[in-house]
């Protein structure tokens, strides 16, 4: 960078600066304010043994009990997980997973028996889990049109470019557009309790209350507002390529149909990691007397629609109870206990070091 050193004003400078007399000259003395003189009152913390060591002990003493509490809570949560991808020959879903095609109209069903060795007392949450599924891929994440999903009619008919190549199909706009919607999980899961006397009792699964409140009520909306006739509202659009039914036939309940279908909303909330689980159904506790899921044999019936074997994906079903801190999460408790112990230990080590060879100069003088 270059700068010109000449300034025409400087031609005058000398005269005004050192002009004799100077009676009228304003004093150029800088103001004596604490700010300008850099004398603002200030707190000057110093790392001394008196402040640092107690801090370590306090962190240690806080973290260890929290960690123990978390660990115990997490251990009390019951969780059951079953993989039904059908990779092995022995797996009940092996056949379904083998001869799958998007276009087949005949549903393939497989039945997986399992046994719960503990009764599940409170509400039980049913999740489906996918592995090796990159919902967090950049192109995947952005392949949606939030205006369309919010019920905007213009966007419904002309989806955003982000949705390409799932924006139009056969010259009709796709609703909902984009890769996320197109790849929506569409296996149907049903649970049966095998009564000891041999009858299969279907367990009622709650389809609502599984999405975020803001998603359901703010972010997603059907076109035409509260128009009950969704078929008319989606007139002129076509279903996503991979879907079997159009969006307005996802559920019979008009409050859970179209874009505000909760299964759809849950799917649209993309996962952060390639292995993830999503809430599928809730089994509500019926009464305080009977456990929601008693100990015993169960059957999981899967209508196998969703292919994952092409990219070595896995599908799981998870049943879980919940506590104040959510589902089973042993890591947090262990991490807290570890960090707390390390802090405490560090505190002790530093204390010893400080006493052995530390610089304990508490005088006001500096000895050189």
């Amino acid at each position: 960078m270059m700068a010109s050193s000449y300034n025409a004003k400087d031609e005058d400078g000398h005269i005004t600066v050192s002009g004799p007399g100077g009676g009228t000259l304003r004093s150029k003395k800088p103001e004596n304010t604490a700010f300008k003189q850099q004398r603002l009152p200030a707190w000057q913390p110093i790392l001394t043994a008196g402040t640092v060591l107690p801090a370590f002990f306090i962190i240690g003493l806080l973290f260890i009990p929290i960690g123990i509490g978390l660990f115990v809570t997490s251990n009390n949560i019951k969780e059951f997980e079953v993989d039904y991808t059908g990779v092995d020959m022995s797996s009940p879903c092996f056949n379904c997973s083998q001869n799958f095609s998007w276009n087949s109209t005949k549903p393939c069903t497989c039945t997986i028996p399992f046994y719960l060795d503990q009764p599940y007392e409170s509400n039980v949450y049913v999740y489906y889990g996918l592995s090796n599924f990159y919902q967090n891929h950049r192109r995947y994440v952005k392949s949606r049109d939030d205006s369309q999903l919010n019920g905007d009619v213009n966007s419904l008919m002309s989806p955003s470019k982000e949705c390409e190549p799932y924006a139009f199909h056969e010259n009709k706009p796709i609703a909902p557009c984009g890769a996320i919607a197109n790849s929506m999980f569409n296996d149907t899961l049903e649970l049966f309790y095998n009564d000891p006397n041999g009858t299969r009792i279907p367990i009622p699964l709650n389809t609502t209350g599984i999405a975020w409140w803001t998603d359901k009520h703010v972010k997603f909306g059907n076109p035409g507002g509260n128009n009950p006739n969704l078929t008319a509202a989606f007139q002129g659009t076509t279903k996503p390529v991979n879907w079997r039914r159009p969006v307005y036939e996802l559920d019979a309940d008009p409050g859970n149909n179209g874009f505000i279908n909760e299964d759809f909303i849950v799917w649209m909330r993309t996962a952060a990691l390639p292995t993830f689980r999503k809430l599928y159904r809730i089994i509500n506790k019926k009464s305080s007397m009977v456990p929601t899921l008693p100990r015993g044999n169960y059957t999981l019936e899967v209508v196998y629609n969703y292919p994952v074997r092409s990219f070595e994906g896995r599908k799981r079903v998870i049943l879980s109870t919940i506590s104040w801190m959510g589902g089973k999460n042993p890591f947090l408790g262990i991490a807290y206990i570890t960090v707390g112990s390390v802090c405490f230990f560090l505190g002790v080590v530093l204390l010893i070091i400080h006493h052995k060879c530390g610089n304990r100069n508490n005088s006001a003088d500096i000895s050189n």
Partner: protein
Amino acid sequence: QYLCAKHEERRVRANDREYNEKFQYASNCIMTSKYNIVTFLPVNLFEQFQEVANTYFLFLLILQLIPQISSLSWFTTIVPLALVLSITAVKDATDDYFRHKSDNQVNNRQSQVLIRGSLQNEKWMNVRVGDIIKLENNQFVAADLLLLSSSEPHGLCYIETAELDGESNMKVRQSVSVTSALGDPNNLALFDGEVVCEPPNNKLDRFCGTLYWRDKKYTLTNQNMLLRGCVLRNTEACYGLVIFAGPDTKLMQNSGRTKFKRTSIDRLMNTLVLWIFGFLVCMGVILAVGNAVWEREVGSLFQSYLPWDPPVDNFLFSAFLSFWSYVIILNTVVPISLYVSVEVIRLGHSYFINWDQQMFCSQCNTPAEARTTTLNEELGQVEYIFSDKTGTLTQNIMSFNKCSINGKTYGTDPLDFTPFNPLADPNFCFYDDTLLESVKVGDTHTHKFFRLLSLCHTVMSEEKSEGELFYKAQSPDEGALVTAARNFGFVFRSRTPGTITTTEMGRPVTYTLLAILDFNNIRKRMSVIVRNPEGRICLYCKGADTVLLERLHPCNQELMNITSDHLNEYAADGLRTLALAYRDLSEDEWEAWSESHRCADKAASCREDRLAAAYEQIEQDMMLLGATAIEDKLQEGVPETIAVLSLANIKIWVLTGDKQETAVNIGYSCKMLTDDMTEVFIISGHTVQSVRQELGSVCLSLSLFSLQCPPPSPPPPPSNLMDNISGEFALVINGHSLAHALEADMETEFVSTACACKAVICCRVTPLQKAQVVELIKKHKKAVTLAIGDGANDVSMIKSAHIGVGISGQEGIQAVLASDYSFSQFRFLQRLLLVHGRWSYLRMCRFLCYFFYKNFAFTMVHFWFGFFCGFSAQTVYDQYFITLYNIVYTSLPVLAMGIFDQDVPDQRSLEYPKLYEPGQLNLLFNKREFFICIAQGIYTSVVLFFVPCAVLSNATQSTGVPLADYQTFAVTTATTLVIVVSVQIALDTGFWTVINHVFVWGSLGLYFTIMFALHSQTLFKIFPNQFHFVGSAQSTLLQPVVWLTIALATAICIVPVLAFRFLKVDLKPQLSDTVRHTQLVRQKKRKPVGRSVGGAWRGVGRVSEGRLGTRGSRRSGYAFAHQEGFGELITSGKNMRLSSLALANFASRHSSSWIDTLRRKKHSHAHTPPSASGESSPPLYRLPLLFLAGE
């Protein structure tokens, strides 16, 4: 004239605009502004995009517009870029506005132009080449003029050139004799001479041209020119012909573009930024390779759910795009805000310098000024200071301090003169009332002593009103002596070419001035011969003791011995001494000598020598009167400052144009040299051989103390060998020796020798040599240099040093204009370096460490996430967070730290100069520290990514909804990041003012506020496509698990840092830690901050207050100085205003040869090669004053 280039010339015809317009010379309108309203935007933008950083960000912006690459929305780059560009543009616009204003002001000044025979007022900008303009007293010269005529006799006029070359003394210019006769405007209007001269150039002291008028040629020189920027003084009016106007004037030609200085931190920063770019490319390549592998192994199979974008048909192309996508994402390791923040911090520091009351000089009403705002932190790293002497270390004020009259010495207590003498100069002070008593009593010797001082000089007086006398002396020494005489009742009132009028003890006396035996540096003395009203003739002489004592009448040996003792005593106190003597002449003696003098004066050949011989003849058998001692007053606090600075390990070199004795003398009085020193080496050889020999012997004696001095022949000694020499040495080197020492084959030897010495004084150096010495140290020592000076002769040194400091003193403002910092007292240097410089360096280092840390912590999370998202360049955070992180969420706390942080209070850093050392050794921010910061940043990013990852992957909300969705993860990581870096800045901040509190807490508050706002339903309803994160903040931050995660990650990030820092302070405390600690202890004990504590340097400044013993013999000698030839000017009467005086008979007696003499002398100066004589005058700078040598 032979210098004139023949092929290019300028022709100017007076009073003929039509003729001159043919050549299209520049008009007198100056334009220093760069833009106007129309051109501002394009030109300014063009200039800004010449900055590499800006272009880089523009490139990123273009990348982001490609949809396949764009991993971030365009506004993440354009918002900061626009911010930076507009801030710079506003700054440039303001600067330019002020330039416009000052241009306008200058261009609209009025000047009187002779148009068609009458004087008309014209604006400066309308003055054309070839115009004749009239100047009045105290007016600025509007353009470069050829002086045509003046109101003064002989076409003389006086100018002050302080603006141009920094010299404050007046200069004489004279018009060519034919034009000086023109006189009034009517004649001038008819003047149609044509000037042919050289084209515009920047040489201030040279002009050659020819005036053609009425078929005759007249040679023009610089002596005929009035340059723009000068001020007319003591001249009622003059007329000049415009030769160069506006941008062609020498003033404008000299205001060339200056080199932009960069600090070492700047250079380091640029290197680091390059490294980071390298690192970024590496990351990009790693991730692109990952992308290739992933797309081949997984992505291609995943295509049923996520097909490739149309142009992508294989994994390699995808990897290529992914590389650029990652370049975009990861570019935040070097955010654009880095450069802006650095500038803001430096600006803040500059303001603190400007605002510092303790660097304000109330006498001259000048605050310190940081003229460059980009060098502050380098002030904390200075290792070498190069200082000018006159006006910098000394005040350039001479005070009559002591005297010895007839064997009695005077001078101890302060004295009030006003009751005794109403004509006294109120500023004069002298410390002995016994002298006053002896004057009052009427002691003959005392009276003779002061009579001599009032008569024997070449001072001019000006009496504006009765009793208000102003003396104009060529040298301050002389002024001091005449002022002393004035105060003791022998008042020099006025002079004419033939008389001197004084008031002696209230009685006016007029002496007839018979002759001035002027002074030159061979004679080292001057005399006057006067006839007093009684008719007795007397010769008064003052001069160097060595010269004068030889020429005394042998009758009074005893007095001579006593006086000689006194002289030694004065010299030992660092005073400049003069001996005074007189001789009564009889009428016959006078007549005889007068005749021989007249002969010598008229001699055609060897006039100088014959005059000198004539002077010699009469200056014999004089009677000693006594001696005077003049103090070359040091500026306030100079020895203390030098002591403090050298305790701070800063080496101080004095580079002065003064002669060796004066320089050494000042060296002693400012305690650079002390008698405790093992040896003071003096190198004054004139030839290469002798200089080499002298250097070799210095080296040899140094080696006696260290046994490490390498042989003086090649291979050149590695300079560090001589760094650890016991004992203190000083080196004094003369300018002509320096010229040899600076040659390529000797310079390494010279540098290593000089750097082994504690003090180095270079005397009789030219301005160019000053710069060369600075360059030498810059080249060989790789150290930060600072040059401080006040005169135009220091400009080159100031410009070539890393930091230039100008003393805004009396010697014009040239040095100040060239400088980076200016203040009015040398002692402020310690505060500038030890307080402001140290703080600036500390703050800048802490700022950079933290800044790199926070951006690595922020950015590297994307890298880790790459391994989990198929290397698809998906960001971890919300795009708004990425946009705002650097400019809103984390900028203010670190700025507050960078601007306000203090480790120890200012008075502590002056008390413990050792605190300055980390800066010189560059300990606080170097490559090692940088890697530590980077490592810490990367560690933090690992924690920031993997802890939430591990916790959230299985966690659910208390409603059973999984927490592992992308938005929750983004919010958790971002919040953790903001909290971790806030805790880190809280740890780094050592000085918590209100502002720091507001900024740190405010930033955190702002983060949450903005996040909730961006995730609010209101915004989503307006722009559903822009705010995808609706509801995330609320739903995430209500989860206890999220807060537990944040706390966990923060603890994991901070605890090791805390432990490490504690160990460092506890086991290996730095001096600043200790000072800080003691400060705390002291505050706790409520002990009054005792001055007794830590006065480490105190006393150092005041060693050996008394007589300088053994080697102090007669150092000072003589040092009164002025230009030769003034005596002639006086006696010829040419510079007398009183044109009505009986000049006629004088003019007849003294031929008007003095001008010729003067001109001849000037010429001989100009053509003397610099090394041939001591008083060389390099172009562009003032002629060094000629001194009498003292030996």
